[in-house]
């Protein structure tokens, strides 16, 4: 199959269809509205459902309802919209329903701005909603990976019966890149008859299914939380994804960076290499589960003097990096989050200051 040139937001919409998702509910918000504009044309062609909800709050529950009824479903939004959906995400996690949320991050807090940001790392990985739940978070670094991760997200959501988030940013949503839609990432339909409230007749059963999150009995609630925790522990074992760049060298500095920011760091690393300076990068592709061991291993390499987390935020992922490095190396931070992406030259200057 040939590559096609597509805008990130549209490619995410197409990826959902290719992964076998025929249901999409959303509310417009910059910089991701093109997903909705794309899918409102494409889904009817596929016999699918497109609905623009009245708010992100309502959309969150449309997703919950559709998922609870056993259908594959996705929404996309951007930071303030994800805040509003976070209530539903908590319920969906508690009720153990699979659903895919895409956050094309913009600057915050508050209304913030409409330019790219990575300010929602905490919200995505530490729980935007209430209670003891985690989101499996995939962080693409470009349009191709946004396609692949969107497709993978459906399989992961169904494997764990849990909400999964694809965490991109306004740059990934807005830029155009050539993409392939890998056929091997199509997600075969999974049987949801054991738990979905899809109507007793649908599954030929006399036993009804309940989709719920209320457990007034303390032992039952504790058990539900233990069940959720077991999934998160399994994710930590089975789903960690990361990339090491220039790590075979005797690097003095290890950069940790993800998404759009990691693309700039990659360029900076290449430019530094020309000057004879080796710097490596560890790029988490899953933000939860975080590549804990890989981060530690890369940081404690003999040649490595220090670690720096470079983000389009005021310092969020750096807390996970510090946690993983366990004090064995100094962990520095550089970030900008007004919407301007730090240039390779800025990164080079920062790195040189560390050596």
């Amino acid at each position, binding site marked *: 199959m040939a590559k096609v040139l597509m805008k990130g937001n549209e490619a995410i919409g197409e990826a959902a269809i290719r992964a076998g998702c025929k249901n999409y509910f959303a509310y417009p918000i910059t910089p991701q509205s093109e997903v909705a504009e794309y899918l409102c044309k494409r889904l009817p062609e596929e016999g699918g459902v497109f609905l623009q909800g009245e708010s992100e709050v309502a959309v969150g529950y449309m997703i*919950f309802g559709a998922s609870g009824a056993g259908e594959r479903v996705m929404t996309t939004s951007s930071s303030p919209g994800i805040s509003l959906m976070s209530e539903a995400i908590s319920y969906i996690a508690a009720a153990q329903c699979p659903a895919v949320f895409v956050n094309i991050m913009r600057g915050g807090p508050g209304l913030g701005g409409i330019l790219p940001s990575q300010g929602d790392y905490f919200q995505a990985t530490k729980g935007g909603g209430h209670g003891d739940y985690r989101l499996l978070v995939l962080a693409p670094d470009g349009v191709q990976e946004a396609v692949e991760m969107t497709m993978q997200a459906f399989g992961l959501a169904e494997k764990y019966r849990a909400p999964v988030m694809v965490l991109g940013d306004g740059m990934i949503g807005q830029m155009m890149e050539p993409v392939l839609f890998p056929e091997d990432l199509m997600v075969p339909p999974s049987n949801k008859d054991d738990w979905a409230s899809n109507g007793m007749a649908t599954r030929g059963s006399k036993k009804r299914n309940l989709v719920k999150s209320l457990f007034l009995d303390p032992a039952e609630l504790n058990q539900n939380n233990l069940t959720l925790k077991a999934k998160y522990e399994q994710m930590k074992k089975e789903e960690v994804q990361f990339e090491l760049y220039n790590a075979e060298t005797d690097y003095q500095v290890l950069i940790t960076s993800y998404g759009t920011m990691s693309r700039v760091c990659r360029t900076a690393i290449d430019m530094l290499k020309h000057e004879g300076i080796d710097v490596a990068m560890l790029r988490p592709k899953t933000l939860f589960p975080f590549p804990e061991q890989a981060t530690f291993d890369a940081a404690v390499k003999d040649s490595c003097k220090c670690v720096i987390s470079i983000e389009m935020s005021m310092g969020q992922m750096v807390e996970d990096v510090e946690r993983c490095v366990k004090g064995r190396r100094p962990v520095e931070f550089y970030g900008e989050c007004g919407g301007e992406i730090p240039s390779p030259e800025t990164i080079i200057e920062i790195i040189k200051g560390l050596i």
Partner: protein
Amino acid sequence: MGKTFSRPQALSDNHTHYCPGCTHGIVHRLVAEAIDELGIQEKTVGIAPVGCAVMAYNYFDCDFQEAAHGRAPAMATGIKRVRPDLVVFTYQGDGDLASIGMGEIIHAANRGEKFTVIFINNAIYGMTGGQMAPTTMPGQRATTAPAGRDTAQTGMPLRMANLLGELVTPGYVTRQAVLNPKQVNKAKKAIKQAFQYQVEGKCFSFVEVISTCPTNWGMTPLNALKWAEDTLLPYYELGDYKTPEDE
């Protein structure tokens, strides 16, 4: 002699947690009877609210989902859109539907979502212990309005059936009561009609049911029925506010 009266199949045999004199039990039964008579139990999905009916799924015998406070119409929209062949209903109280869930109900009704809403209006928050609802009557006492609802501060009670009846989108919107046997029979017909419209794929259907809350009104069940008759019904007039035939 054969059995002439029994529990509807769509109702479980669990004891309810509802207070003595509460009319939830009656409405549950009416919904279950409608489900039985239309033969739709096996393709019905109910949505429980947050409020006294949060555990309605313990009393109905069909698939159920449990919504967050006020969000039942959004969940019902999600289910009905992806599975139009299922019969979907929400069962919500006045705090749930008319306060925190106002946005969801108006928009679901206005889109003409083809599901059924059973709306219990007893003019107070029940489960949380008697706080003022948007439907609380002027002067009616509540734990958050100890001197009685002051309409200068909180406005007049919302009349949901009237409000939804004003929408231009076709639908079935009716207000019923269950304060005496005659009303119960009429409410039964309305609830069955609401489900019937859904089964026919015709329109959004909404049945408001004027109910009682003896516990939080601080009344005996009998006095509660009388108070509802005397105080609620003159303000919340019974009848159809919209039918699909209107158009």
